[in-house]
């Protein structure tokens, strides 16, 4: 049975409502990810500077996983 649980339903509702016509692809998101991470770590508002990256990271678990891993690396090694 392919049934969403309540948490997945809430996430689907949120993601459907937050869908934009101009979303970027995984490749486009990854191209901008290094800059996004550096803005975050510099304490700047990365989501306002690069809103389409923010949007993509909310929608795509693979890119989000790579964002979190990159954030970990730069935080730990700098």
């Amino acid at each position, binding site marked *: *049975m*392919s*049934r*969403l*649980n*309540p*948490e*997945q*339903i*809430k*996430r*689907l*509702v*949120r*993601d*459907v*409502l*937050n*869908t934009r*016509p101009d*979303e970027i*692809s*995984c*490749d486009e998101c*990854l191209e901008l*990810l*290094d*800059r996004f*991470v*550096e803005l*975050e770590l510099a304490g700047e*508002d*990365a*989501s*306002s500077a690069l*809103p389409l990256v*923010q949007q993509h*990271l*909310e*929608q*795509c*678990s*693979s890119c*989000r*996983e*790579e*964002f*979190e*891993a*990159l954030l*970990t*690396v*730069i935080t*730990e*090694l700098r």
Partner: protein
Amino acid sequence: MAERSNEEWLASLRGPQRDEALADLRMLLLRGLRAALSKQGKVSDQDLEDFAQDALLRITAALDSFRGEAQFTTWAYRIAIHTALGELRRRRWRDVSLENLSTATDPDFVPNTVADPSAGPEQRALQRSVLDTLQHAVQEDLTEKQRQALIAVRVQGMPIAEVARRMDTNPNALYKLLHDARQRLQRALQDRGLPREEVLAAFGLSAGVRPAKVDTSMARKADDEQAESRTD
């Protein structure tokens, strides 16, 4: 190891000091990957070596595409992480076929109720209306491929790249397929005249401005639950 500016990295990787620069970069990638993959199970030292070597090849082949908008090392770590996590996802999902997931015509994919005892009668009525609309739109407005991809990604938690591989397409095209699906569902809610802010509030979701930081807590929780359900 010598500190290098972006320009120095590029020059050394293209010039007579190439071997030394490659050795330094390889060491950085190994350290970075060790940190990045520390929470992933079953990653051996040999895996780290292989990922670093593969990433090194990709990085040196892509030097011309480095635009200098971030530190060279951040760019290189990003490519290494993409290489390593891509391979780990492939391994994790190796034995799962889309056929196992394809109950895409299940009318209960979006149930028309959510168990939320804290919701008042008005909220529950709005929730019911939203879920009825989504349930209908999933069946009537989405294509078979969109439903199949939605179930694999949303219910089973399969990464987009892995679903794409099984559907003979690429991650960008699959993301677009899912984006189109979300737009169709969004249009169905709009056509029903369901106000965005009130719907968000009815589901206990914050309305209005997006959070300044990437809020991944809800997404992570859902992913964790999906992972748990797969092992049941």
